[in-house]
């Protein structure tokens, strides 16, 4: 209890810093710290699956995207920082936000007893899938349609991002080319870290059927390792017009959708799995989905194309 109160206060303190810091770079560091502390809170809330996602995606990869933007926009931000809104508006905003917080806090305090729960339904559903991790069972069977739509949302976000490409670079390579580290420290570290990281990513994906983990967490780690290799200059991004790249991107949602449709023939509806083969089918969906998500996340971090292959 004391631990939880301390952690909650720390989370709020870091959030205040993220909002109040003058320098955007410092605010982004505050945000990464915020994600790390939230991961601890998720462990305390008995949600290790979410803790994994938060540590990898919410803090790590999101932090890198925001950091890249903050360094590129740094000089512009300094001049914009002078144009803060007036004291009246700030006071009004403070009052409004206090009311919102107080309202939410009141709701938290009067939440019903006993709490409503879908856990028994999820447990009943889990038995049919042959999976040992309830969260994966929910993602892949009980609420599989959400997960299917989510993979599509990721693809749509990537399409939106690519459509912001300046005309001359259409179909080119995303991000800047990073060169080898002058004294080789980064190259050395990346050569060691990336293989270990790929192993960890596959491990986290694979244990997802029986223990906390799963395709989103594993895919995020794989994506992060690819970006690390790119930052160390070990690999370069492919041009986004390559057909094999686009095949990897759509393979996951396509397989997911196909097996979902096959549910009409094999079982009793869309995304229904026949009980005897449920686990096999789920693994058949998860492998390409993991690859697709990893590629999509990595390309979302890399940003729109900014150069052509010849350069």
């Amino acid at each position, binding site marked *: 209890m004391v631990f939880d109160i301390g952690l909650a206060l720390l989370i709020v303190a870091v959030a205040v810093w993220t909002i109040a810091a003058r320098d955007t770079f410092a605010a982004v560091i505050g945000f990464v710290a915020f994600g790390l502390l939230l991961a601890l*809170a998720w462990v305390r*809330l*008995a949600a290790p699956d979410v803790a994994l996602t938060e540590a990898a995606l919410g803090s790590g990869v999101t932090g890198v995207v925001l950091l890249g933007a903050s360094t590129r926009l740094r000089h512009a931000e300094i001049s914009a920082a002078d*144009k803060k809104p007036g004291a009246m508006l700030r006071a009004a905003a403070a009052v409004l*936000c206090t009311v919102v917080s107080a309202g939410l806090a009141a709701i938290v305090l009067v939440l019903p007893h006993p709490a409503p*729960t879908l856990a028994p339904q999820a447990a009943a559903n889990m038995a049919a899938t042959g999976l040992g991790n309830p*969260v994966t069972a929910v993602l892949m069977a009980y609420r599989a349609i959400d997960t299917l739509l989510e993979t599509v949302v990721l693809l749509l976000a990537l399409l939106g991002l690519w459509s912001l490409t300046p005309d001359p670079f259409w179909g080119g390579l995303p991000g800047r080319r990073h060169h080898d580290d002058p004294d080789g420290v980064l190259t050395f570290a990346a050569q060691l870290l990336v293989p270990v990281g790929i192993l960890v990513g596959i491990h986290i994906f694979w244990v997802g059927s029986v223990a906390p983990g799963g395709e989103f967490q594993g895919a995020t780690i794989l994506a992060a390792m690819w970006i690390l290799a790119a930052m160390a200059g070990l690999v370069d991004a492919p041009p986004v017009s390559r057909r094999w790249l686009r095949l990897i991107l759509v393979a996951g949602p396509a397989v997911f959708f196909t097996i979902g449709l096959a549910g009409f023939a094999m079982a009793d509806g869309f995304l229904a799995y026949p009980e005897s083969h449920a686990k096999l089918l789920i693994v058949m969906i998860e492998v390409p989905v993991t690859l697709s998500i990893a590629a999509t996340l990595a390309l979302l971090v890399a940003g729109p194309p900014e150069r052509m292959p010849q350069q």
Partner: protein
Amino acid sequence: MSDATVYGLCSAVLVGLGLFGLIVHPELLRKILAFNLIGGGVFLLFGVVARRGAAAGFGGDPVPQALVITGLVVAFAATALAVALLRRLFQETGRTTLRSDG
């Protein structure tokens, strides 16, 4: 007051803080950061609801937990898209805010 309630109150504060940042910061990148703080608060509230719904031998209700995982991934996609929009705005106009008088 249970452990979950502590985090519930924390999430209420986070949503308020994020909303404040979203309103008062003119820089778009700071607005994106603030928006992610609101997201963190909302997800934490889901976590509290999940923890309170512990049943059937699970430490928490897996349905809200799965929703939060989905939400985190979508929040990341939205952030990446927003950052790309902001960078394009900066390339085109040299501005990082939405004000036209600056």
